[in-house]
Each structure stands twice: as structure tokens, then as C-alpha cells.
């Protein structure tokens, strides 16, 4: 217990690893034991991560990174075993342990061959993903970032559907290209900063004093790894293959957590690495915003013409993640916290959609939309849950998707109405393809005789879906706790990367004490909350980024 109190992140990180090591020693032929141990350790992993929620301090005087651990690892190159989380990583860590549990539970009867390896690899994957969100050391971060590719390769390659070999290696190679360039970026950052340490906060703080050319190069070196992972528009082609061919649980984890590693990377590394020079910075921001909007629209349009349900949901991820990157590179508190919330939303609602498609696939062994129709008659409960997941995904108010998209659009609007307008077209398109899918699969008479006697959801499937649905409603109705957790890290990041934002804020509202009001100031802390909405669109950083919307951009 004492160890747990002082090393809570280590415990959370390595609980799944213990499970997979244990599985190594379970004989191959005792099939049930593998399932039980796999589920047990996924559950344990979730359980030990829960205390993070209430132990995480929201007080403005608390450290930026909490639950810190720091041990020397490879002294000769200055790498440390260094963990710590802030509000953003906290959300993603909890999302990972929760989705890990749910997807492992959902595999109970779906995985019939090589169960031992399946649960072993899945737990390893958990370790890799958690490590990425917790690492405060670049070397450690890179290690986790790469390590999780291997189990994912096997999850797709062994338990996937027909084109699994192709999809698996494509996923691996695509991600690897970005990773190796990022490795060079990390090394360059390491040497530019004088060498000797891989500590992430230190290095990122030093990065702001580099010359513009270096900063631009560093930004692009990191960009590819994250853009491929997210994925942003020109780098997205691995995603439909990987999502479609992966087993259900693999798709849930891919969409729910793996993609978030890209957006997390953007927030944690790319934003602080943005060049200080206004012109260079403006150029980069414009590119990122435009690419985000293209991702939103392109993803949505491609969804319209998909014949395979899973592929449709996969492409919808491109569109939804476009919103996330849009929010990030708006560089406003609303955009940023909206983006994090949208990342969670996407994990919940797309995760639920993949699970639901998995339910159909387990019963019919097809995912073609044309094979289904009128499913609400034999499976009314399934149809209801599916409806909620769809509505949450398309952003109906009172469900989670709305909160995220609203905040992102609001944050983007502060920068330029153009991006916001284009992005909202994406929302309309999203409603179109999701509802059209629903209509084709659920409504009307049962056209295919094979569908007439399909079983409705069973208890285990409820158990995987209900938590997601509850969370969807909770974020949709009362997102305040979430926003409060994100408040401080978001504010710190915006202050660092877009200092003009708060300067303009203070000038517009002289009531706030006009002196240097850094992070500790409670007045400053209140800024990004939802209640300070009106009148912020106008003074959006006139000093720092000169007239971003009107001049700088060609149509």
C-alpha cells in the first residue's frame, strides 16, 4: 500500500504487464484460464487507475505534473524513468484503462483461436499506450511509442479479417516512418538544448529560445509522427485498412486510444515547439488549420459512399479527429479543452459503434450494409443503444459529442469564422452519413431472411456498452468536472504558446488585476471556463498573430 501511494503511476502502468507475464506461464490448452486472467488484469488495471481521479489535485498551487516519479535509467545518455501526469494525460489514462477493460471483455467469445497470445498481447498494448501518456522523458516516451506497434501488428495480423496481413504491415510501416523522423527530432532537440537530459518539460522550455529555423525544423520533425497517428488528411490511408481488418476489440482500442496518441503528441510536444517568430508561426498554424478542415470534410464525404459499416466508422474517425486537431491549433483555451473533450468523446462513441458492429459481425460474419436492413424488429434493444451511440457521435445536444464540437467551434471562431464555418459543414455531413447508415441498417422491413431471428444483446454485451452510454450522457449533461480538470493544463499551454491571447483578454477587461498575472492567479484560471463567453471573439490576439484570418490566407 505504501508502495502504491508513492508509485501510483508505476502500478497503473505495469499491472497489465504483470498479467501478460503471468499468461506466459499458463499452459496453452487451458483456454478459460487465459480469458479469466486477461479480464482480471484488465479490470485490476482499471481499478488501480481510479484513485488517480480523486487524488489528482485541482488546486492552482499544485504541481503542473502530479504523481511524479523519477529514477535514473541510462545515466550515460541521460535517460530517466520519469512519469507524471497533468489534467490532459489524466483524462487519457483513464480512457485507456476503461477502454482496455471494455475491449478485453468484448473479446470473450469473439476470439476463438490462440487466446493465450491474444490476451498477452492486448495487455502489452495497454502498457505501451499508458506509458506514452505518462512519460515525462523523451527516451522513455519513444520507447513506449514504438513498443505498442508490435502487439497491435499481431492483433490485426492474427485475429483480423481477410486482408489482415496487408493491413497489419501497412499500419506498422506507416507509423514507423513518422516515428523514426520523430526520433531524429528528439535527438536534435536533445543536442540543441545542450545534451545531458531527456526531461520533457525542460527540453520543451529550452526549445522556445532556439532560432526560428531550428524551431520550424523541429516542429516538422515531430509533425509527421503525430499526423500519421491522428491521422490527418494526406497520411490517413493506413487507418481504414487497419480499422476494418482489426478484430472488434482492436478497432475499439485503435480508434479509442491509439489515435489519441497523435493528438496528445500535438498538444504536449508540437504546441510548445511552435516557432516564436510570428510569421513562421502563422504559416504553420494556417497549414494545420486548413489540413484539419480538409480532414473533416474529406473524411465525412468518403463516409457517404462506404459499403462496409466498419469502414464507414473508420473514415468517420478521420473526420472527428479533424475536429480535434482544429481545436488544438486554434490555440485558444476553448478550442484546446474542447479538443481534449472531443478526444474522449470519440473514444466513447466510436468505441461503442465499433462494439455494436462487432456484435453484428459475431452473429452474421459480415459487415456489408446491404446485408442488413430492418434490424430494429428482431433486435430492438440493439437498435436503441445504436441510436444513442450514433446521436452521440453526430453531436446531438445533451450527449457528449455536442459539448466537444461546440467548444472546438467556439475556439476556432475566435480565430476565424471561415474555419468554423467549414467545420460546421462537417457536422452536417456527419449527421447525414451516420443517420443514413442507421436508416439503411435498422429501419424498414427485414429484407434478408438471415436477419429475421438475430439475437438481441446479451448480458456481457450490455456490460461493455452501458458504461460507455452512461459516460456519453454524463459528459453531455454535466461536463463541468471534466472542464475543471482540463482548465489548468490548457491555460498553461495557451499561455506558453499564445501569450497574446491572455494579454488581449486583460486589455479588454481591465477589472482583472493588470500586473503580471501568471499561472497562480485565480482570475486567470477562470478564463477558459465556459461562463466567460461573450465578447471574446473580437480581441482574439491582435498583437501576436497579425490578422490571421483576412490577409494571410489564399482562398
Amino acid at each position, binding site marked *: 500500500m505504501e508502495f502504491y501511494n508513492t508509485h501510483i503511476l508505476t502500478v497503473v502502468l505495469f499491472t497489465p504487464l504483470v498479467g501478460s507475464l503471468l499468461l506466459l506461464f499458463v499452459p496453452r490448452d487451458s483456454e478459460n484460464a487465459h480469458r479469466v486472467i486477461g479480464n482480471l488484469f484488465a479490470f485490476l488495471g482499471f481499478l488501480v487507475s481510479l484513485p488517480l481521479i480523486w487524488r489528482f489535485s485541482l488546486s492552482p498551487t499544485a504541481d503542473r505534473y502530479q504523481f511524479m516519479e523519477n529514477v535514473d535509467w*541510462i545515466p*550515460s*545518455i541521460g535517460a530517466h524513468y520519469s512519469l507524471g501526469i497533468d489534467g490532459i494525460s489524466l483524462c487519457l489514462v483513464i480512457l485507456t484503462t476503461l477502454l482496455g477493460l471494455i475491449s478485453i471483455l468484448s473479446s470473450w467469445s469473439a476470439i476463438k483461436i490462440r487466446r493465450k497470445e491474444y490476451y498477452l498481447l492486448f495487455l502489452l498494448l495497454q502498457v505501451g499506450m499508458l506509458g506514452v501518456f505518462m512519460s515525462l522523458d523523451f527516451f522513455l516516451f519513444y520507447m513506449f511509442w514504438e513498443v505498442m506497434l508490435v502487439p497491435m501488428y499481431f492483433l490485426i*495480423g492474427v485475429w483480423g479479417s481477410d486482408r489482415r496481413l496487408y493491413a497489419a504491415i501497412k499500419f506498422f510501416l506507416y507509423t514507423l516512418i513518422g516515428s*523514426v523522423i520523430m526520433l531524429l527530432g528528439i535527438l*536534435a532537440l536533445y543536442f540543441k538544448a545542450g545534451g545531458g537530459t531527456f526531461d520533457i518539460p525542460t527540453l520543451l522550455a529550452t526549445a522556445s529560445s532556439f532560432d526560428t529555423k531550428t524551431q520550424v525544423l523541429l516542429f516538422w520533425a515531430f509533425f509527421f509522427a503525430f499526423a500519421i497517428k491522428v491521422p490527418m488528411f494526406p497520411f490517413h490511408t493506413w487507418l481504414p485498412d487497419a480499422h476494418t481488418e482489426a478484430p472488434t476489440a482492436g478497432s475499439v482500442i485503435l480508434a479509442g486510444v491509439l489515435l489519441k496518441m497523435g493528438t496528445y503528441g500535438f498538444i504536449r510536444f508540437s504546441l510548445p515547439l511552435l516557432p516564436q517568430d510570428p510569421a513562421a508561426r502563422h504559416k504553420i498554424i494556417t497549414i494545420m488549420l486548413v489540413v484539419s478542415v480538409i480532414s473533416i470534410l474529406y473524411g465525412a464525404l468518403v463516409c457517404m459512399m462506404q459499403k462496409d459499416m466498419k469502414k464507414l466508422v473508420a473514415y468517420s474517425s478521420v473526420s472527428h479527429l479533424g475536429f480535434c486537431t482544429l481545436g488544438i491549433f486554434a490555440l485558444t483555451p476553448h478550442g484546446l479543452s474542447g479538443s481534449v473533450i472531443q478526444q474522449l468523446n470519440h473514444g466513447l462513441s466510436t468505441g461503442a459503434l465499433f462494439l455494436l458492429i462487432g456484435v453484428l459481425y459475431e452473429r452474421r460474419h459480415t459487415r456489408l450494409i446491404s446485408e442488413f436492413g430492418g434490424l430494429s424488429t428482431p433486435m430492438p434493444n440493439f437498435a436503441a443503444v445504436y441510436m444513442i451511440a450514433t446521436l452521440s457521435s453526430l453531436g446531438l445536444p445533451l450527449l457528449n459529442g455536442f459539448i466537444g464540437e461546440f467548444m472546438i467551434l467556439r475556439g476556432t471562431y475566435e480565430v476565424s469564422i471561415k474555419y468554423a464555418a467549414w467545420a460546421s459543414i462537417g457536422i452536417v455531413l456527419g449527421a447525414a452519413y451516420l443517420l443514413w447508415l442507421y436508416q439503411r441498417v435498422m429501419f424498414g422491413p427485414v429484407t434478408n431472411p438471415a436477419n429475421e431471428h438475430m439475437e438481441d444483446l446479451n448480458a456481457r454485451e450490455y456490460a461493455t456498452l452501458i458504461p460507455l452510454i452512461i459516460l456519453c450522457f454524463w459528459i453531455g449533461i454535466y461536463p463541468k468536472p471534466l472542464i475543471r480538470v482540463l482548465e489548468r493544463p490548457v491555460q498553461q499551454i495557451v499561455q506558453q504558446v499564445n501569450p497574446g491571447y491572455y494579454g488581449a483578454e486583460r486589455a479588454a477587461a481591465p477589472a482583472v488585476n493588470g500586473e503580471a498575472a501568471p499561472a497562480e492567479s485565480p482570475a486567470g484560471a477562470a478564463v477558459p471556463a465556459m461562463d466567460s463567453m461573450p465578447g471574446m471573439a473580437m480581441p482574439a490576439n491582435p498583437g501576436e498573430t497579425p490578422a490571421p484570418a483576412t490577409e494571410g490566407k489564399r482562398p
Partner: protein
Amino acid sequence: MFDLIHRILGPFQSFMQQGGGGLLLPEMMLVLFAMGILLTDHLLEVRDKFFNALMAMLGVIFSAITLWQLRRVAEGGAVGFSHSLVVDPFFIFFGLIFLIATALVILLSVRYLQIEDENHGEYYALMLFATVGMMFMVSGYDLIVEFLGLETMALSFYVLAGFLRRDKRSNEGAVKYLLLGAFSSAILAYGFSILYGIGATANLSSTEGPLPPRTNLEVIQAAIEFRGHGDLLVILALVTVIAGMFFKIAAVPFHQWAPDVYEGAPTPITAYISVASKTASFAMLLRLLLTVFWPLRLDWAMLVAGVAIASLTIGNFAAITQTNVKRMLAYSSISHVGYILLGIVAAASSTLGFMTGMKGVAFYLFVYGFMTIGAFAVLIVLQRQGIIGDELDDLNGLYRRSPLSAAVLLIFMLSLAGIPPLAGFIGKYFILQALIETGHTRLALFGALYIVPALYYYFRIVAHAYLYEPGNAPSPVITLGQRISFAVLCFVTVAAGIYPEPFVKLATYSLFFPTTFSGH
């Protein structure tokens, strides 16, 4: 009686103590045991042939013990035999690699030879002779000694590569190896002869004590320094020597022999050639570049960088299309040569990069040995009567036939590809670090991006082992010796990845050049 013994052993004793003979102990042990094998081999029944392997193993162990005892002497950098031999940490480090590689290959050979029905004592004796040659390549501080070491090693390998007399591919590989090897040795000898000529210009009047011969590396270095950069003779010597050495390490464009020899040679010997022979040649190349040619470092750095990029390109892209695993690994080892050469480029660029670059090179060579022998070890396990087990399809469904060998195969493939947290990644990391540190961003980008095609073909092997259904091939039987070598190989590959600190220390130790030489 006692007097007689004393009279016989007396000169020997004084040779060992005063004549510097102690410096030769590791080599002597190997020669003694190799002779012993040759003497006792024909006395052994067919079923007792494993005794040869035991004997060879003992030789390696004794040699390792004496090597370990030399480490004290090495710290001061002992020079013997009128400046023609040096025992320094560089030698200890590489000697250690050779002995470990030899021991592992011996463990892997026993069953292989039984199955091929070629269980002759000469096999082990030649391996030990080859090791002796490698040790002289590293400890030689004189052109003659280095050349003799190289030839001792190469001659042993020509025979070993063709050891499967009844196999056409083995014969073909051996003949190719012999012809091309002799050709390259001739080029190297030509370069050495020029160096010998250059050595005459050295101004040695200031040296105290007995004059070192003109073939001594430091003498030649002084002469080259005296003649300066633009000297045509020096450039000619540089190019011929480097070309000869590039052949031995199989760098592009001197690589064509590698795939054929790798494919034809008995698999344990393939592993041995690709690890020990390559490491020894690298050590000798380093010795030459860091002493004799150090004044010309800016000239050869460009040359080496070009060869490195060519090796990476051809090695990686040619490997993609191979269907024979041994050929694929041959091409992949060409690409590994590219990485190591990049490390040498970084080391030559600046005093700052020297430490990181050389550390990277030493670390890479060390772990490269383990992971490469590991990859071949899995193929050796797959071999059975009439089947070499080196086609990609022979690996199909290995996970079901032998989960253990499939698991170790995965570890070695990941490590070779450079995926953390395994040894191969740390090796590539150091090389890339050195390149970035010395400002070779473009070379670093090349090196980093070539990880991607490498991963593709390594994972073709993995895919065959894990994702393809097994045919009707039987489950391989893994002997105790193979299990032990698996354990050692896996342990080092994983440990050097997760906690590389002790291995980094070992690599740094090898860079400690305490000799009189003071070039850097």
C-alpha cells in the same frame, strides 16, 4: 630430474615473462586446443565426435580466462614483439566478442554436423584457427601481423564455407569466396606494400630505444603525416587498403560474394562469417583508420559516408525481394554494415563526435553479433534431414510447431530492425545520436528512414512464422546446446535494450587507447 624440467622450461619461462610471450596467451590456448582436436579426432568413434566440440569449447574457455587476465596489462597498453603486437582494451573487447561468438557457434554446430553427417574434427579446429587469425587482426600493430591474421582467418573460412562437400551450393559458395577473397587480399597487399614504401620517409631519428620496423602502424602514420594530404601515393594506399577491407566487411560495392556464400555455407558457419569475420575486419579497419590513416580522416570520411549510404540502400532494397532467409539476412547484414560505417563517419568528423561515434560503433558491433547469431540459430534449429530450413516457407506456422523458437525469432527480428526496447535499437540510437551531434543531419535522416524497409523484410520472416498456417512440417527438436545459446543470445539482446548501461560501459572501455600513439 627437476633440473631437466627446468632446463627445458627455462627458455619458455623467460620468453613468457620477458619476451612478451604472455601477450600471446589467448592465441596460444586456441592453437594448442586446435592441434589437440586434430590429433585426437581420428581416434574417436563416430558417436563420440561431440568430444571435438567439447575440446574446442575448453579451448575457448581457457583462451577467455587468459584474455581476462591480460586486462590488467591492457590498461597500460602493452606492446610486444618489437612493436608489432599490442594488447589494449580495444583488443580485449574484440577478443571477447570473437570468443563469445565462437562458443555460441560451437554450441549450435554439434547437431547440425550430425544431421549433415559431416562430423569431422577439422571443423572445430578450423574455427579455432580462424579465431586466432581474428585476434591477430585486432592485436596486430604491424602490417605484416595484420595481414597474416587476416589470411589465417580467411583461409579457415574458405574451407569452412565449403564444408558440406556433397552440397553444390556449399561448393559454389566456397569457390566464389576463395576467388574473390584472394583477389581482395591481393589488393590489400598491394596497398600494404605502398604503405611499407611510405614508411621509409618517416623521420625516426628522435625516437629513443630500438627503432620500430617500417611496417609499424605508428611509423607509417608519422610518415603520412609528414607527407601531408595531397600526396598521390598516400591516396592510392588509402583507396586500395580500404577497398580490400570493404570486401571483408561486405560493404557495397564489394558485397556480391556475401549472399552466395551465406546461402551455401553450413548455417552455423554463415552465422560465424557474418558475425566474427565481419567484426574482426571492422576492428582491423578501425585500427588502420584510427592510426595510419587518421591524418587523412577528412578524406576518407567522405568515401566511407558514400559507401555507407550505398550499403544501406542496396542492402535494404535487395533484401526485400529475397525468399531465402539466409540470403535475406546476408543483404540485411550489408545494411548493418552501412550503419556501422555511418558511426565511423561521425567519429571522424570531430573530437566531440569521436567518443559518441566510436561508442556507437563498438556497441553496435557487440549487439549485432548476438542478434545475428540468434537469427541464424533459429534457422539451425529448423534444419533436419535433407532440409536446410532456410526458405521463408520453411518457417510457416513456426509459432505452432515450436513456440519457443518462434518467440526468440521475434525478439531477434525486432532487434535487428531496431525496435525498442531491444539491443538493436540502442545501437542505432547511438549511431544516429553521433550523426546528429556532428551535424550530419542528412546522413542521420537516411539512416533513420532505412529502418522502415528493414522492418518490412524482417517482418516478412515474422509473418511467415506467426501468421501463416503450418504445413505438414514436423516440430523441430531443440537440443540442450541450442537452448543454452538461445538463452544467452536472448538475454543479451533484451538486457542490452532495457538496461544498456553495463554494455555502454563495456563499449566505452574498448575506446581507451593507452598506446604511445597520440593522434587524438
